[in-house]
């Protein structure tokens, strides 16, 4: 298959060998599970259970709200202990509403789960989408965007290719690699179902060249299907970004503020495809995921299939605990992953990696002045000018940063990685993006206030006019009454 070059990028030390050859192991059902209501992009789920309820495995715990949301299901059977605020696996360390489930140790499935769809290729796209939505599937590559919303793109746009993302360009992470090696047929079946839902004729599986074993196994599994092409892509971070992968495969660059779907390509992660397979073929909701536990501080790094809601501290103990002092815990990969407030937080759907990094791996250095070497400009995979953007953001000229295209930054962190002066460039861009979004929200809020104030004025004017009309009518009536009375008085002989 002909490949196209992508702009910029970096070649970090991949450190995948620590877990790449380790088969996925299942983590036993923990005593307690903590299921946060917001594990996805969009509106948080709304709980349908309360403290004291007994639930079975796979039973609905919280339903999705609005167009972009995802439901949550019980990962095992047991009793709902509470619905309360628990620290979220989020860099802010803020609490969020979480369902606490105490396991009864029986792990009994609910008996009202939907039946498997025997022949998904005879089912309508709506039927399949409804099943994926029911299962609470979100993008398992890390973005956690609700999958059914992405599968709906086929109804609005003409999609010709489903691009299955097995690039896994983040260092340390090997969970996608392992899933492709161990569940190749499930992944491809899920991909075929997704392609059918999207109306896409072609499926391309893209795997970085540092995973030759996964490439071989996937190519083998894809042999019976002429419409599936398995291709290697060069090892170049951030190849796994959906825009960049699309460019590498099709040669087309996704325009700013557009989707890859506008080019006729929809990108899904390989683990998401496996979850779709389970939901459609087995009628099972998304209850677990494979996560890479790695980093220099972990005794025995592993790939673990774990129930959503398991505390990270239990997973670290399962990996033999910490051998060295961890300077930082990271949710995801070391490039784009976010720092965790600690290990007392649960595994969520979008968590692809849990890294315990030592001080030497974190390699924190004080920032020096910019020497204007221009390396960040050369390596920016989005064609932006990090040096200029950071300079204007430092002076809080956010409108200028927006003009320079900060909203088109994908936060891949290549610029921060390469900067010889250790300037936290991507931190500036994340700050600017957050501020610009906050300003946008503020603007919408003020518009709402204005609308409400105008509605009130209109109401008051209407009420005043009605009052005036009533007063005028009353005065007229009084005048008429007086007039008729006076005529009566003036009548002679009265």
């Amino acid at each position, binding site marked *: 298959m002909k490949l196209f070059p992508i702009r910029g990028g970096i070649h*970090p030390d991949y450190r995948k060998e620590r877990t790449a050859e380790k088969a996925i192991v299942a983590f036993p059902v923990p005593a307690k599970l903590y299921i946060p209501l917001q594990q996805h992009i969009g509106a948080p789920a709304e709980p349908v259970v309360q403290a004291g309820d007994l639930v079975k495995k796979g039973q609905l715990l919280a339903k999705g709200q609005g167009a972009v949301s995802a439901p949550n299901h019980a990962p095992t059977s047991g009793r709902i202990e509470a619905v309360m605020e628990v620290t979220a696996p989020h860099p*802010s360390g803020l609490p969020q509403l979480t369902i606490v489930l105490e396991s009864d140790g029986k792990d009994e499935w609910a008996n009202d789960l939907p039946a498997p769809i025997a022949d998904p290729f005879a089912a309508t796209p709506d039927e399949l989408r409804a099943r994926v939505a029911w299962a609470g599937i979100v993008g398992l590559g890390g973005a956690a965007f609700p999958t059914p919303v992405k599968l709906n793109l086929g109804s609005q746009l003409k999609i010709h290719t489903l691009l299955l993302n097995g690039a896994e360009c983040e260092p340390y992470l090997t969970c996608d690699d392992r899933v492709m090696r161990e569940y190749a047929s499930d992944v491809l079946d899920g991909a075929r179902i997704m392609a059918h839902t999207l109306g896409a004729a072609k499926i391309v599986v893209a795997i970085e060249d540092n995973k030759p074993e996964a490439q071989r196994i996937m190519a083998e599994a894809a042999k019976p299907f002429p419409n599936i092409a398995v291709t290697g892509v060069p090892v170049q971070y951030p190849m796994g970004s959906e825009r960049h992968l699309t460019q590498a495969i099709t040669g087309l660059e996704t325009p700013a503020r557009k989707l890859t779907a506008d080019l006729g390509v929809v990108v899904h992660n390989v683990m998401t495809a496996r979850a779709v397979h389970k939901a459609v073929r087995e009628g099972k909701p998304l209850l677990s995921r494979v996560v890479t536990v790695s980093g220099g501080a972990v005794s025995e790094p592993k790939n673990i299939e774990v129930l959503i809601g398991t505390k990270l501290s239990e997973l670290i103990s399962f990996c033999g605990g910490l051998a060295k002092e961890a300077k930082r815990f990271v949710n995801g990969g070391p490039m784009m992953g976010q720092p965790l407030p600690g290990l007392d937080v649960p595994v969520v759907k979008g968590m692809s990696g849990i890294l315990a990094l030592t001080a030497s791996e974190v390699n924190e250095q004080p*920032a020096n002045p910019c020497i204007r070497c221009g390396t960040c400009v050369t390596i920016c995979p989005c064609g932006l000018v990090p040096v200029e953007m950071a300079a204007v953001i430092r002076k809080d000229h956010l409108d200028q940063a927006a003009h320079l295209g900060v909203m088109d930054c994908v936060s891949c962190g290549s610029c921060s990685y390469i900067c010889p002066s250790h300037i*936290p460039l991507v931190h500036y861009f*994340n700050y600017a*993006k957050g501020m610009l979004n906050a300003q946008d929200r503020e603007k919408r809020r003020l518009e*709402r*206030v204005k609308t*409400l104030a105008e509605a*009130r004025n209109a109401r008051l004017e209407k009420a005043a006019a009605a009052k005036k009309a009533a007063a005028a009518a009353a005065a007229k009536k009084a005048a008429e009454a007086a007039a008729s009375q006076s005529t009566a008085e003036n009548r002679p002989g009265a």
Partner: protein
Amino acid sequence: MLLAIGSVAVMGAALGGLLGAAAKLLAVEENPLEVELLAMLPGAQCGQCGYVGCGQYAAALAKGEAPVTACAPGGKSVIEALAKKLGVTADMDDHEEESLQYAVVDESLCIGCMRCLAECSVDAIVGAAKQMHTIIKQECHGCKKCFNICPTEAIKMVTVPVTLSSWHWHKPQSGEGAVH
């Protein structure tokens, strides 16, 4: 040739005169700057700036009598927009950036006097005479007018909490380290 020059000259003079007369007769009395400034303000008519409403504040701004920092609900973004429009530098020192608040009614203290209902500029309070009142949290814009008028101090102002969806990264401090 002469005829052409003459006729164009006569037409020019006549049309020019017409335009001049129209400009005098049909002049807009409203200050266009005032209208533009009013469009920038939140329009909540809350009166926290010290003027009766947004219109009066905009008029004072246009005359250069009022500071651009007086609008509390507008916040930093409105101040910056006003300063840019008027070509002045906003002195942010005398503007206290308060985090957004909303009002809540303490149900045990409310006597149902309806005074706050009349004050609310966005109709965010529901209630009836001698019935307990309540405030629609999503619609309240935190102008404190109800808080100030309540005779039983039943209204409290609560800061809108930072949530997972509203939180964002802070600005890197100078000298803060890069990580790789």
